[in-house]
């Protein structure tokens, strides 16, 4: 779930942030979303203390979502 959150937020950030056409940026974001999700899942299973994992995942998702929100819809 957390991984999906990060993947979602990071992808939206990419789709908004990349200096490309709307379609192109979105396609990059979609291509990247699954590997991002994977990386978060792998990292989450490595991080030993559960709290640290949650802090990391939620923090990352929060930062991405915040930035994306700040940029606003294109």
């Amino acid at each position, binding site marked *: 779930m957390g991984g999906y959150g990060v993947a979602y937020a990071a992808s939206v950030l990419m789709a*908004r942030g990349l200096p490309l056409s709307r*379609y192109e940026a979105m*396609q990059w974001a979609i*291509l990247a979303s*699954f590997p991002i999700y994977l990386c978060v899942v792998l990292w989450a299973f490595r991080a030993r203390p559960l709290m640290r994992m949650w802090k990391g995942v939620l923090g990352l998702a929060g930062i991405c979502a915040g930035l994306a929100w700040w940029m606003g819809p294109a």
Partner: protein
Amino acid sequence: MSWLHTWGGLITGWILFFVFLTGTAGYGEIELDRWMRPEKPLVAPEVAQADALALGLKFAETTIPDARRWLLSPPGGREQPELRYFIEDYPETEGGSGKRFSGYLDPATGEKTQYRATGGGRLLYRMHYQLHYIPRTAAAWIVGFCAMAMFAALVTGIIIHARIFKDFFTFRPGTGHRNWLDAHNVVGVLSLPFHLMITYSGLMFLCYVYMAPVIAAEYGWGEDNRRAFTDMMFLGHPLDRDTRRAAPAPSASLAPMLAEADRLWGPGNIGFVDITRPGTTAARVRIVEGTRHVAGERATLVFDGVTGTVVDGPIVNPPPRAISKTLISLHEGLFAGPVLRWLYFLAGLMGTAMIGSGLILWTKKRRARLEGRVGFSLVERLNVATVCGLSTAVAAYLWANRLLPVEMSGRAAWEAHVMFLVWAVMAAHAALRPAARAWSEQCGIAAAAFGLIPLVNALTTDRHLGASIAAGQWDLAAVDLTCLAIGIGFVAAARIAARGHQRAVPAKTISPTVHGAAE
């Protein structure tokens, strides 16, 4: 990492096995389709594409003149062995979808052909992402979750086997669970690029389901907004979805358009002709090349349906689209010739074997510790029911195709019902028998189910091996021969399972501590 690999693999393994098995069968979709319609001519008549299309157009004009879309696929190539039509009506309410009709025509006469009702190879192919009996979106999410777990299992598998090269050449037969571990590694590593590609690209296919919120964040929610993205992703241009009736207008002749396609792509290389809103001022004729490419698009010509002049519709193909399009072509493998197609099939089988051996490995490693627990025997029995039971069910699907009466109503649906009924019976058998016995018995049943298919075929049709090989129809013979080969494979598996059963009996007399130390 190891934990994620083991448990993520276990809980999704059974569905992944189903997905891989039916998906692998999907690489022979066209060949299975043909095998499952034995009424088709053994050797297709040679008809020029333009002549066949003219007959198809006549059929469309006479049956549903007021259609929104006529789509005609002429004979030629692997995909269209005959003339196929697909007709879509104007929707009754704005924005809806109209009634759809499809079928086959004799390319020489234009008559409608009568084949037995069957799901064909196409149904097996569809099952690998739609499953069966459940709504599509639900299936997409289940398959997507499993695919993501597969993705994680592959990468963690690589991390666990840091000594991947050395491990690859290690095989320790007859060492209990270790030979299963070695086998799991061999089939996993041998086609690792295939597994990674197929999993990642599989997720890309349904990305608009899984990553719907991402798309919605920029495009907005709703079908139309979603399509604004997916049309670009899959087609490279927005598709004309206008369903309003335009003013009637005479149609331009199709023949010069086809001649232009022949001139550009070589004769007999038309994939399909797609006419939208025919007979109106808005008519468009889209002709698509037959040859498939690994990367990039099939060439397309778009004509104005009234004037017959080329309408320029450039395909936009920026780098990220080229990547996603290539992933999708690699997944489908439609560009593959016979040799590469066999490799695809083998890689798919290896993927299936990797999942199956992983599931078996789970039980082999834990037998000494967990034998007798409810969870353990559940896993063990689900393994038998999936690995042997599902394989047998696929064979039963082919049996049903031959044995159900041709005139039966709901025949195509019953073929699938037979498949799942047989699977249920196999699962019940696996649940009731001692596990070791269930393995060898079900391997035997699967061997018979596959091995006898050429015989069943010979008894029920005249499209048997004697006829197909004599006529040089190897794609037809390949179905029988592959079933025979799988049957022989299961005979070998049954013998291994029987030996394992005999070994399992004395093994139980060893005290658990000794067995545990050997782990």
